[in-house]
């Protein structure tokens, strides 16, 4: 049996363990949240290094992208480098392909997504493939990177401007403590029900991107809207149902009763392949994704479409 361990800066309340089967291979999955404590996450990685087949780094990015430019998140790299023997991955190896494909799937295989769908993408530099796919489809998109990470009421509406702002900001921001840039630990359980930035939610049909950013200012009512995100728990789904969302779509499939982050899916691919991430490369990952035939998970929440 393969063993994959997820170490996350996220809340330990989202911890879980599961055994899944992928391509007839049994995989034991364990997710360990460290409540925003970078030192603890590093210690856990050092402890399990060499004892499991792959490590997924959750609640943190190692690399961010905009228009072919890669930016490094210093704290993420520190965690990745803490694993000396076991390959550690943050999901960025598959995210571009997987999420681009998810948008295409939703546009061609469902009636949810059309070129007229107005999209609020809460953050795009952590999933630039998804951002490009929406733009290629012709959707009007608001990229909320400045709104959700820095509280600046500035909607970015083109990929060119997103890339320009990323070029100015990310080389330095990537050096800052990650906890300043992204909700970690207990912050992930908090919710600011203040109505702040509600206009951006109101003007969208689809709210897409990182779940913790989506939830950060999620209005009391999002009737008629749907959500495309990464990982959700049953509690998250109930919250969306209560607020009136019609559907929640996750880009990764459900295994053992919940969806897993791209970091864990990438770690599973690394474990199954027996190769290091740099040996797999973009083409290797794409081939594995093709074999796994992962499609988005669509859950009808019963809300009335707008």
């Amino acid at each position: 049996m393969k063993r994959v361990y997820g170490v996350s800066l996220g809340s330990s309340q989202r911890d879980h363990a599961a055994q899944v089967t992928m391509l007839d291979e049994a995989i034991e999955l364990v997710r360990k949240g460290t409540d925003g404590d970078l030192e603890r996450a590093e210690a856990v990685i050092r402890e399990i290094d060499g004892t499991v087949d792959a490590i997924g780094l959750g609640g943190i990015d190692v690399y961010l992208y905009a228009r072919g430019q890669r930016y490094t998140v210093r704290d993420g790299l520190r965690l990745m480098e803490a694993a000396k023997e076991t390959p550690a991955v943050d999901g960025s190896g598959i995210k571009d392909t997987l999420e681009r494909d998810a948008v295409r799937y939703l546009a061609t295989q469902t009636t949810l997504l059309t070129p007229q769908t107005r999209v609020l993408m809460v953050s795009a530099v952590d999933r630039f493939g998804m951002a490009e796919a929406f733009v290629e489809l012709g959707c009007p998109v608001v990229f909320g990177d400045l709104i959700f990470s820095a509280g600046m009421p500035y909607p970015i509406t083109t990929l060119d401007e997103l890339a320009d702002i990323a070029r100015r900001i990310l080389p330095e921001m990537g050096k800052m403590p990650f906890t300043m840039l992204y909700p970690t630990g207990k912050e992930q359980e908090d919710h600011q029900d203040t109505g702040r930035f509600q206009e951006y939610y109101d003007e969208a049909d689809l709210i897409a991107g990182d779940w913790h950013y989506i939830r950060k200012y999620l209005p009391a009512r999002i009737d008629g809207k749907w959500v495309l995100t990464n990982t959700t728990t049953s509690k998250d789904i109930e919250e969306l149902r209560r607020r009136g969302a019609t559907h929640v779509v996750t880009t990764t499939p459900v295994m053992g009763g919940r969806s897993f982050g791209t970091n864990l899916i990438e770690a599973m691919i690394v474990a199954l392949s027996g190769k290091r991430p740099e040996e797999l490369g973009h083409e290797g990952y794409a081939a594995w994704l093709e074999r796994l035939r992962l499609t988005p998970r669509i859950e009808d929440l019963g809300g009335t479409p707008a």
Partner: protein
Amino acid sequence: MSDASKERLFAALDLFREKVNENARLRQMNRDWNRDIAVVAKDLVGVEASISMRAGLMEWQPQSAENPHIVLTAPADVLIGIFRGDSTPTEPYLDGSLTLRGTQEDVLRLDFVSLMIWGE
């Protein structure tokens, strides 16, 4: 430290104000950000400045700020480097030579303002 350092700090604040106020995109980004920011050069005794951000426009005065939302404290040369764009706030913040007191969101936003002007 000399009067020359003080003059250089004030000239750097003039330049920073000019860059903030001439940047239409930055004015738009900061239209809701009304903040008073104290600038304290810890090696220049009695020299302080206060920055006022209102509706996206910046003004500054060579006097201490009353009840500031953010307090920036650093040696004059560090402050001069930041306001002139010779260095970013990140490294002095991380090495402890620049201290920033304020809410995390305000501190982050001030960093964004600097990077939107000088970042490349």
